[in-house]
């Protein structure tokens, strides 16, 4: 079964492009441009979450902290995405597993995703 990745970013074009990249690699991709939907995730959890740090007023770090606190979701690897390169510290503080800065190289994103997806489960 294909690995399942959830992409959360408030810019539809970025979500679209990342989806294409991941699908090209054979991943199953779900997307959302609304941070609220992540809080409402139930039962079916993704194998990895790509999470924008700033989603139309919603703080990605809050979402991250929330998921990492919940025993049901804390094992989901989270990679934070930000337009700011200097977010390592704040991503770590929020409990994210890794981070990547926009704009990124495709191979860079794919290798980070592979790193966490292959070791999970």
């Amino acid at each position, binding site marked *: 079964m294909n690995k399942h990745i959830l992409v959360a970013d408030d810019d539809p074009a970025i979500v679209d*492009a990342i989806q294409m990249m991941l699908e090209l690699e054979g991943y199953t991709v779900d997307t959302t441009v609304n941070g609220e939907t992540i809080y409402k995730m139930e039962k079916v959890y993704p194998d990895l979450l790509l999470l924008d740090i700033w989603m139309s007023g919603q703080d990605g770090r809050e979402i991250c902290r929330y998921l990492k606190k919940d025993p049901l979701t804390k094992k989901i690897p989270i990679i934070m995405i930000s337009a*700011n390169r200097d977010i390592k510290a704040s991503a770590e503080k929020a409990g994210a597993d890794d981070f990547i800065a926009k704009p990124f190289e*495709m191979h860079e994103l794919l290798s980070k995703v592979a790193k966490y997806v292959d070791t999970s489960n």
Partner: protein
Amino acid sequence: MPKTNKYKDIAEVEELKSRLAEAEETLHAIKSGAVDALVVSEPNGHKVFTLKGEDYTYRVLVEQMHEGALTFTEEGIILYANKSFANIVQLPLEKVIGSSIYDFVAYQSNNDFASLIKNGKKKSKGSRGEVELKIVTGRKLPIYASINSLQIYEIEAFSMTVLDISQLKIAKKLEESEEKFRTLAENIPTLTWTANADGYIYWYNSRWYEYTGTKPEQMEGWGWQSVHDPKVLPQVLKKWKASIADGESFEMVFPLKGADGIFRPFLTRIIPMRDSENNIIQWFGTNTDITKQKELERQKDEFLGIASHELKTPVTSIKAYGQVLQKMFQKKGDAKSVEQLQKMDAQINKLTNLVEDLLDVTKIQSGRLEFHEDYFDFNELIQETVDELQLTTEKHEIITEFKKTKSIYADKERIGQVLTNLISNAVKYSPHAKKIIIKTTYDNTKVTLCVEDFGVGIPKDKQEKVFEQFFRVSGSKQSIFPGLGLGLYVSSEIIKREGGRIWVESIEGKGSTFCISLPIKKNKIEQQKNTLADTEIQHE
């Protein structure tokens, strides 16, 4: 012999007798020392002028006078001058007497002097005014002249007294400049003050009292400390005392408390004023309220932050779509399309770098530039960067001449950013060259990298400026080299923060070599941060 002739002869004899008597009187007076005899050549022959015996007392008086005194004919011939006048014009007395007064009047005072003479003749009280004399040395001397007309032996003549007013003029000028300074200092919005050589402040402009809401007696000397933030005051005192001790000018930003109790940031500059022997006479200080600048700076940084963030979003998706396309063409085996998309990607990276530079400037200025340091292979990073940048130019061959380097401890991405900047500059500023040479060397403590181009070069006087914010190669060629003027500024800040050094060697028209050196071992960035904090203290 006709009778008339006889009478004429008698008259002639009488005339001769009287002349003889006069000559005898003159000779007697000269012998007794009571008189000066003056022989002056006139158009009709020589003429002798004497000072009558009864004028002797006046002569003594005139000789004793501190002011210069002289008499001269309508033609300007000096009949008599006292020693003081000779001293004023710095000539021996015998050279002064008999010469022309006009030889001593400075060219630009000719008209003024002529009108003094004219008025002196007309008015019974004489005329007075300032003119300039010309001294043998060529120096001009301001004098106050008083001229009266008089008759000497039925000849129209003039007497003149001369007062040297050069000292007075200097004193007046000083007074005027002091007056000007006070007027200026009172009318500028800057807080201004002056202190003695030992730092004791003895004068503030009224803006100081207005802003601080204090009284002169509270502020005199070292009383200013009461309007300072106690947290910052020790640093201000330390720096100011060091300035006083070394005689060095002072510059610092620190908060000052307003009459409303609010602290505002002020840029303070203090410069020493020295006498001709280089001793400090006093200190001149200004405090400029920079609240507005700080606010504008903050707004600018905020704007740049938002703008670069907004620009990055579409760049991110464009880059991602391009790379997806590239991957698709790769799968199809379409090498040509892959190559073109790689070129497109390299251009997107260029755009990204411009946007990053904007953001980095705001981070540098607010001290938010972060470094994620780790060990990495220096040569490997250079090779990666070169491979990527080779795609942006077909003209240049980027040649690498590496010495084996060790791993260094630094922020790989930031150093990569510097390399990209140096190499792209080399490409940009050598449009007609065929190669760019990149060399690395190392020793026990540091690695050094040099990027050499064969392009336009940088004039000697501009070489230090290239690392400043917004500096761009100026002049007629500016249009050929677009850019924001931030790349090298950001690069030099990164290298400084990594504890390294950046420099340039260049010959205009031949090319430039930009070099960086970085310490191999982990270095203490904290120290750098501390020195930065020392130059500017912001009130919190």
